């Protein structure tokens, strides 16, 4: 059903994948499950935060913010309740890793959330699962019930006097709810529109209380970081992008799949060695290295590391770890249209530059994809994208503008060719009719 593992993988988060019944707590406990939580309790909150900082873990949801620093922003001594929220609303096109983590090893996620709960002196946590991942809800609920039975959740956890309850919450289909403040609105039972920031969720999150919000993979990473120590994790990546990450490679490669690789891995190595290279006789056209939101890379720009800083330096981003590969058979105009159709559909309508911008980009790209319009339309796409960028409430507007702007800039020739081909065809069709 899923892809075969690769010999190049470094299995930290995926270490229990492939073990029979890896989702069960007895199996998890036989493979060092909940040792991280016990260690966190023994270490104390300050030491846990320092350890997460030392691991150089950066948020795996898309923004790549240093997780330890985010943890240090939570006012742990606030008299308000503190909440831990896990973002399992995975919906960035190109990304399919959180699903595997929950399906194969729900206990490493529960453990990571519990470590965060203990550290933040929180008594309540929620896992926000996208509506389409319904089968994961029962997996999580079973795993949570097991964790209660073993006193890793519930009252007086492991004799500490600390109580922590964890619940699963279902979304109902909205990409926007992956944005942290929109997720919080959705979790409060409202429409999933973003909030004006600041204040940030760290101080005014769920129910206006301090809230720690992390991606599934980030919480899972914390479990292993605390158990094995920060250095053990950090050593797999460059100084400021520690550890391994689950890289989801899709598109025109021979072995698409989700592979756990060190962040020191390079893009050519991923494509050629891990994913088996392109199909025979094909050449590389482009790569989107961080989900559909990331600016596109030309083949000559692809000699780059997959860590957060290297990709930022290359003018794109590591994003959510979804690497989409396009070979010479791909129609880049249709590809750009498909991206913008997605953002137009998912724009929450809250702010005008995004709502109107994505709608107009879609209209113009539809025209271009049909071979109508002119090169002025291509310029207009670039101009619109530029004007949307940085002017929207949340990053969805940027996410729509970024790839679109980069595609019209880097593939102008493809647009020209498409227009010329269609127009030539029209003329010849006309001649035939007259003749």
């Amino acid at each position, binding site marked *: *059903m*899923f*892809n075969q593992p690769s010999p190049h993988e470094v299995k930290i988060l995926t270490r229990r994948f492939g073990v029979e019944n890896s989702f069960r707590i007895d199996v998890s406990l036989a493979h060092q499950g909940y040792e991280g939580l016990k260690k966190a309790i023994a270490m104390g909150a300050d030491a846990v935060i320092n350890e997460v900082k030392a691991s150089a873990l950066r948020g795996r949801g898309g923004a790549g913010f240093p997780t330890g620093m985010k943890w240090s922003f939570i006012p742990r001594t606030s008299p308000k*309740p503190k909440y831990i929220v896990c973002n399992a609303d*995975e*919906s*960035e*096109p*190109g*990304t*399919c890793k*959180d*699903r595997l983590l929950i399906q194969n090893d729900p206990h490493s996620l529960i453990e990571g959330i519990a470590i965060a709960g203990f550290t933040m002196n929180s008594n*309540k946590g*929620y896992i926000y699962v*996208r*509506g*389409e*991942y*319904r*089968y994961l809800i029962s997996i999580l609920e079973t795993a949570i019930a097991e964790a209660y039975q073993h006193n890793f959740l519930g009252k007086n956890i492991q004799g500490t006097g600390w109580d922590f309850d964890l*619940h699963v*919450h*279902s*979304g*109902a*289909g*909205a*990409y926007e709810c992956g944005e942290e403040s929109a997720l919080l609105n*959705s*979790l*409060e*039972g*409202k*429409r*999933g529109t973003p909030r004006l920031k600041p204040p940030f969720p760290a101080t005014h999150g769920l*129910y206006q209380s301090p809230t720690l919000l992390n991606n599934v993979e980030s919480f899972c990473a914390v479990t292993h970081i605390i158990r094995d120590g920060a250095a053990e994790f950090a050593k797999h990546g460059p100084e400021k992008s520690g550890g391994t990450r689950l890289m*989801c*490679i*899709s*598109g*025109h490669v021979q072995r*698409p*799949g*989700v592979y756990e690789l060190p962040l020191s891995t390079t893009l050519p190595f991923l494509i050629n060695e891990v994913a088996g290279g392109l199909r025979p006789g094909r050449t590389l056209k482009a790569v*989107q290295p961080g989900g*559909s939101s990331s600016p596109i890379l030309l083949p000559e720009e692809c000699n780059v590391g997959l860590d957060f800083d290297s990709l930022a330096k290359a003018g794109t981003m590591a994003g959510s770890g*979804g690497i*989409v590969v*396009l070979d010479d058979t*791909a129609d880049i105009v*249709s*590809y750009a249209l*498909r*991206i913008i159709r*997605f953002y137009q*559909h*998912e724009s*929450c309508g809250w702010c005008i530059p995004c709502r109107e911008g994505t709608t107009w980009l879609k209209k113009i790209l539809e025209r271009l994809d049909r071979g109508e319009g002119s090169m002025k339309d291509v310029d207009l796409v670039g101009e619109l994208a530029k004007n949307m960028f940085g002017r929207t409430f949340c990053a969805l507007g940027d996410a729509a503008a970024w790839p679109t702007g980069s595609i019209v800039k880097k593939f102008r020739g493809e647009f020209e060719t498409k227009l010329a081909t269609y127009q030539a065809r029209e003329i010849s069709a006309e001649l035939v009719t007259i003749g």
Partner: protein
Amino acid sequence: MSLSLSATTEARWQKILDAYPEGRKRSAVIPMLIFAQDETGIITRELMEEIARRAEVEYLQVEEVVGFYSMLRKQPLGKYHVQVCTNISCMLAGGMELWQHACQSLHLGNKQTSKDGLISIEEVECMGACSWAPAIEVNYDFHHHVTPARFDEIIAEIKGKG
């Protein structure tokens, strides 16, 4: 009240209503809607009124979320709702052709339901199966690496089950 739901849905509702702090029952609205829709297939005014009462919110606060989330529906779908992803990763692996095949072989358009109410189809956005593309989801069941031939088999299985 005339709305009656199964014991399973009632239990799910109770569980989710108990999951939020005192005075925060509004949080339960979206999960309550989707769990109920799984049983009823459609969100009616009556259902929204009942959820408003249980979650202690205004009717309009329920109605406004139903209009926002793409999985919440006021029109009935088929017993088997076949969702075909055509987003980038699926598109590069033949997702568009698969979607066209779905429309042509079932004689249905986007979000349309067969006359017998058995099958409906929808072109959907990324469902999180990018590395095993192209993918479809039938209700909540994922199918990966779906070729047109495999699609026909899945449809035949559905028709066999009825």
